[in-house]
């Protein structure tokens, strides 16, 4: 590491953006975290010099344990389901479209543009269009009547029905069982590969987790005084539909690029070996597309956490069945004047996004280093 002229120039060119990012990105993340640990928002929140005291993690504790914040907890669950439906929906539909276009139909260019076009719209436009399409007495609901069937009555964005309901109290048990199942799966795979020692190391904690989930529930304190039902809100389907419509074209483009990148020789070799189309895609193409799927999942997952504009335009401010932590953060902060509580919700959202972004950054960084060496 010599301080050559070249390095000095490079550093001084980068310096302004480093400083700006340090202040305007990381500085403000830091400030938000600090605010979330204070009681700003009690009393005269908008004073020139509002009173602020550090109160530790009380805001977070309130969000997760006060019975008034059931809406926040349901919003977290909504965010989880928004992520699942958006990722699965866009990947499947995008892959399907990509395979169709990969067969080079006539007018492929036009179709590609049509499918990719929704992505260029802003969330607000998409939300407004779909709000009309999913209106209770219009759009999608009257479609069946054109072919003589009775009109639909589903309340796309205002239904209050829930499926897959569970008690908030059982979340640790559910998490334990899901983790245990993953561990069991890993253990079985290790066992088959013949690494028995590893299988035991993985399998034992899985057994412990299952035992705890079944018998050990009472060992942890009750999080809430009364049972609180949460579940998958059917009203979120409407919002997810609009989001999938917007982003499946994007995954299509990613997959199509991937499929076109597969050498023709590989396709023909598979053909010569007697593989039919299904076998070609399942055994040859999909494994090659794996890295693309990973990037698409990361990008879609973090978009699903930033759906504020779509939900606000489509369902309005106070439509709890379709609510999202981002919408609640806006209302708590700028309508309810509870800046500290709003900051806590923002920090939780930030951590959720980091959950997706950091592993992605780490893996792509590693890849770069591998390629460089």
């Amino acid at each position, binding site marked *: 590491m010599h301080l050559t002229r070249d390095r000095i120039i490079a550093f001084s060119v980068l310096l302004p953006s480093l400083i700006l990012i340090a202040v305007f990105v990381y500085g403000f993340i830091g400030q938000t975290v600090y605010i979330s640990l204070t009681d700003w928002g009690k009393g005269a929140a908008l004073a*020139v010099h509002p009173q602020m005291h550090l109160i530790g993690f009380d805001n977070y504790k309130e969000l997760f344990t006060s019975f*008034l914040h059931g809406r926040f907890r349901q919003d977290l669950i909504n965010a989880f389901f928004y992520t699942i439906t958006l990722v699965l929906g866009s990947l499947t539909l995008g892959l399907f479209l990509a395979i169709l276009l990969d067969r080079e139909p006539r007018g492929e260019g036009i179709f590609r543009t049509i499918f990719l076009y929704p992505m260029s719209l802003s969330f607000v436009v998409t939300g407004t269009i779909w709000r009309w399409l999913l209106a209770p007495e219009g759009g999608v609901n009257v479609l069946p009547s054109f072919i003589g069937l009775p009109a639909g009555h589903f309340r*796309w964005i*205002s239904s209050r029905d829930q499926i897959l309901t569970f008690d908030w109290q059982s979340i640790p048990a559910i998490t334990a069982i899901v983790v245990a199942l993953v561990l069991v799966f890993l253990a079985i795979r290790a066992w088959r590969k013949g690494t028995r020692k590893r299988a035991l190391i993985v399998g034992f904690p899985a057994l412990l987790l299952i035992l705890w989930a079944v018998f050990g529930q009472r060992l942890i304190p009750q999080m809430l005084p009364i049972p609180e039902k949460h579940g998958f809100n059917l009203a979120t389907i409407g919002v997810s539909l609009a989001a999938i419509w917007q982003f499946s074209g994007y995954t299509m483009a990613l997959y199509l690029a991937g499929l076109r990148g597969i050498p023709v020789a590989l396709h023909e070799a598979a053909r010569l070996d007697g593989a039919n189309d299904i076998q070609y895609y399942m055994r040859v193409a999909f494994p090659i597309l794996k890295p693309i799927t990973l990037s698409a999942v990361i990008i879609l997952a973090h978009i699903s956490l930033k759906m504020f504009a779509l939900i606000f335009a489509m369902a*309005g401010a106070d439509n*709890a*069945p379709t609510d999202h932590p981002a919408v609640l953060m806006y209302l708590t902060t700028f*309508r309810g*004047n509870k800046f500290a509580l709003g900051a806590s919700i923002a920090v939780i959202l930030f951590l959720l996004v980091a959950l997706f972004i950091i592993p992605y950054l780490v893996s792509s960084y590693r890849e770069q280093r591998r390629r460089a060496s």
Partner: protein
Amino acid sequence: MRFKKLAIAVLVGIGLLAAFGTVMADNLTGNLEIFSWWAGDEGPALQALIDLYNAQHPGVNLINATVTGGSGVNAKAVLKTRMLGGNPPDSFQVHAGQELIGTWVKADRMEDLTSLFQQEGWMDVFPAGLIKLLSTDAGIWSVPVNIHRSNVMWYIPANLEKWGVTAPTTWANFLAIAPQLQAQGVLPLALAENWTVNHLWESVALSVLGPEKWQELWNGTLSFTSPEGVAVWNMFGKVLQYTNDDAASLSWQQATDMVVGGKAAFNVMGDWAAGYMSTTLGLTPGVDYAWSASPGTNGVFVMLSDSFGLPKGAPNSDNAIAWLQLLGSKAGSDAFNPLKGSISARTDSDLSLYNAYSQSAASDWQNDIVAGSLPHGVVANEGFMNDFATVMEMFLTSRDPQQAANACEAIARQNAIGE
């Protein structure tokens, strides 16, 4: 020598100031930025005021900063970031009552307007009850532009005749006729998105509690978990059975449309619905559509009022004071209100300018007991209003009156209601 120079400078200064002062009183210059959420249907009323101001003060460049969005949800957020950022507009729209006091006066962001009220003689022309809503012990904080009534029930007389019902005077009465309407395939009560549900709750609560106990709820002497408090939620749950299940995806205009189109029998909405039906839909008040006080609230006027205040640090405060003078004047009030569909806050306004509905509202305003509105910012601070929307969503899903009452009590304590 030096003293003499200073004295001359001071004298010249005073002379200049006096010269400018006399000129400025008639001829203000510079900018005036007014901030509101009046656009779309309410735009023409604001424009009438702006035209008047421009005619009176041609030297001022008036900047009309509006941020659209139902009942100001977006405008208020923008205003808060501007105030926190030290960039206040010269004057901004705010609901009279706790939305003004709890948010802005408590934060010491407003200028006291008591001397303006005395100078303009407003202490006598505005009702004392209204001035009380705009004041604290330390001063009067904004100038009211209009009065809206919240507890009104709208219907189409010809339709009611066809269905063989009359407008209910109590909720018990409503619950009795609702099944008859349902049997004929008519929705008894049209409802829209969350805030209109809160709006209906207010009317139901007022009929169950009466105006005195309603007031006690907000000064902290009556608990939300008292038997009366729970009874409100009980009755509200019964009324909700007869509303539409797609309410959350409708705007308030769409709920009014259901009544006008004959799909629904009644709608409880503020009297901006009269403006919508008369101006936008072209119906004649009293003939094509009719109204009564919402069931069980006859003789009570649940009011809300838009007002404008003067924030501390406003860059053009002289121009802003001229704006406030116009708003409070008889000319300004009578230019604005007939177009807005509201009535004047002044007791001496020219009633012949107003339509049949507004004339009846104006006479009720003078004779009825006045109560403050919850969802429109009069009786509770913004923290409570925001949390109440969440409690309402909780109730719409669970339909549990006791749980809702407990939650209300909890948020009332958290937001220091009645302290």
